[in-house]
């Protein structure tokens, strides 16, 4: 098991939520104080460096026009981390390639970071959440097709070394692709893809890329992983799917005492409660399949903010498998329970900072995890394990 410290670079100093329409897309930037923002960048980068010192790997992501994640150009922070760190793997999860106009530029950025870090890049690609299409002015229709063409083009740019090659595809056109530098790792950095639905996971499995899923809990995750494993096997990659192909992201806070853990966990819930986004930003036409879209138009989708708020208690989040929080013993057992429930995963993506979880609290959480939970996880969940559901066939069928 590898653990990754993930921070969204949130800017939490906002007026009460009823004073703005949305924390994403339309939140006026006059609410952002650049001096406070500069201090936050320093602080969040320091926390990544502390995670590295504790033996934990590093993960970052990218969102746009939002206070929840003030990292609209993740490759820039990644480049800084490449020079500031020495040993941690650096996971960007990821590049929103359905919204980037020039995949070859993404290939260049990532190759540069791979060289700067001397081969420590783990390169993630994402389609991007629905609220990203307006900031990017990106058509929400046919995003999957764009994402996959972009990914294939990036791999081609990374792996072609004998002068210019060309690409004339459905969405992207380049006549002279010949990037400098080429990646440090050969043939290219490990590729990760995030998906929260079974439909996408099968395709990721067929390619053998690492599949990450976020906050899909006990109910959603098994089907996603099973779809990945099916895709892997159907593509002829063998019957055994290594656990290091699968990753799970959850809110994690470890405290020395239950009271300390509870206090930290409560603050982490900001991640769920602060995400106030109106319906028309959540479901741009074409982002979800038509039958789902139709149900949303009918009113099936309730106010997500309210739903998240209602479910955002520490106990409910732990019960759902969205959060692992408590003493070291408790957290180890919670993670192991999820691990067994889904058939194993090789990467735990730790959402270890959110909202008003202060620097000292964040660092205590990172250290408590790294020192008292991580060693046990590595022993109980070895990287050489094979992922798969080992329960009776009936259960497996239901899950699949």
């Amino acid at each position: 098991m590898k653990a990754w410290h993930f921070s969204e670079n949130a800017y939490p100093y906002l007026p009460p939520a009823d004073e703005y329409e949305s924390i994403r897309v339309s939140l006026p930037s006059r609410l952002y104080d650049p001096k406070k923002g500069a201090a936050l960048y320093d602080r969040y980068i320091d926390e990544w460096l502390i995670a590295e010192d504790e033996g934990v790997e590093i993960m970052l992501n990218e969102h746009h026009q939002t206070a929840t994640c003030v990292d609209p150009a993740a490759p820039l922070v990644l480049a800084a981390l490449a020079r500031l760190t020495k040993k941690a793997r650096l996971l960007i999860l990821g590049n929103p390639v359905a919204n980037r106009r020039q995949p070859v530029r993404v290939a260049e950025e990532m190759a540069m970071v791979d060289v700067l870090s001397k081969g420590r890049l783990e390169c993630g690609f994402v389609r991007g959440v629905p609220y990203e299409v307006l900031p990017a002015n990106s058509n929400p229709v046919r995003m999957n097709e764009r994402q996959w063409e972009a990914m294939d083009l990036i791999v081609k740019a990374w792996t072609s070394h004998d002068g210019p090659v060309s690409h004339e595809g459905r969405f992207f056109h380049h006549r002279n692709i010949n990037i400098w530098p080429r990646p440090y790792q050969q043939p290219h950095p490990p590729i990760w893809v995030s998906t929260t639905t079974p439909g996408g996971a099968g395709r990721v499995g067929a390619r053998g890329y690492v599949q990450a899923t976020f906050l899909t809990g006990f109910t959603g995750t098994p089907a996603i992983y099973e779809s990945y494993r099916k895709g892997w096997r159907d593509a002829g990659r063998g019957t055994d799917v290594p656990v290091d192909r699968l990753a799970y992201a959850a809110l994690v806070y470890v405290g020395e005492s239950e009271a300390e853990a509870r206090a930290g966990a409560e603050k982490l819930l900001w991640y769920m409660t602060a995400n106030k986004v109106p319906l028309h930003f959540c479901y741009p036409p074409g982002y979800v399949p038509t039958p789902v879209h139709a149900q949303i138009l009918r009113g099936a989708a309730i106010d997500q903010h309210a739903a998240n708020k209602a479910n955002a208690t520490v106990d409910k989040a732990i019960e759902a498998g969205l959060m692992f929080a408590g003493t070291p013993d408790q957290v180890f057992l919670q993670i192991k329970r999820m691990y067994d429930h889904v058939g194993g995963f090789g990467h735990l993506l730790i959402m270890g900072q959110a909202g008003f979880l202060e620097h000292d609290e964040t660092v205590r959480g990172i250290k408590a995890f790294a020192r008292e939970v991580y060693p046990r996880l590595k022993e109980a969940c070895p990287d050489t394990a094979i992922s798969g559901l080992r329960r009776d066939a009936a259960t497996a069928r239901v899950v699949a």
Partner: protein
Amino acid sequence: MISIAGIELDVIERGRGTPILYLHGGAGIGPDAAFIDALAQERRVIAPSHPGFGKSSLPDWLDNVDDIAHVYLELMDRLKLTRIDLVGFSIGGWIAAEMATKVPERIDRLVLIGPVGVKTGTPDKLDIPDVFAMPREKLDQLRFHDPARYAPELATMPDDELHIVARNSETLALLTWEPYMHNPKLKHRLHRVNVPTLLLRGASDGIVSADYLARYAALIPGARIETIAQAGHLPQHEQPAATAATVLQFLQAEKEAATSGARR
């Protein structure tokens, strides 16, 4: 269904007489039934559902309004429509305008109802409000003179109809997302439209403003403007009889003018 360029087009045909090709707007052909029937009292009306709308298929290669204009030129050939009166609403008006720039000699008269398709204003202000970034209630307020009566009841709509509403809005996004609701080239081509042209809008239209329509009309030689009272963006839905009467009257008057040799 009529197959054109690999697309299965659902085409409505009603009435008899000199043909009108009617092109629907972004909400699909559903709201236009009464208007089409009213036109068909006097004329033959051919009204396809655009690719990706209604029950018409959507090929992978198709992604803009100009593509549809080409499909309909082929439809005209297939139906042996040498010349037509062309009527389009909203993005249907945009498609009609694109067609008219390509084959003005095959179009006798052109009617654009609440059309989009050109960018006439300054870069720092949208000509057309961003329909993809507002709550549905706001959209209905902009679209309808009387939203309480005319806004669709999505909560109680049958599944198959609601599926079409969802699909229509997806295709609308595909076609109009960027550049938003216009083809930057179109306004440099509209001077080719040397046919009698009427631009219509509902007096309460919150999508296509009176200023926008005036600037659009100024791009088409000799184009005239009329307004339908007590109607929003869909005058053919809120005032089908009055809208049909205005359209038919224009088509007839221009036909008589052409016949008598008084055509502009």
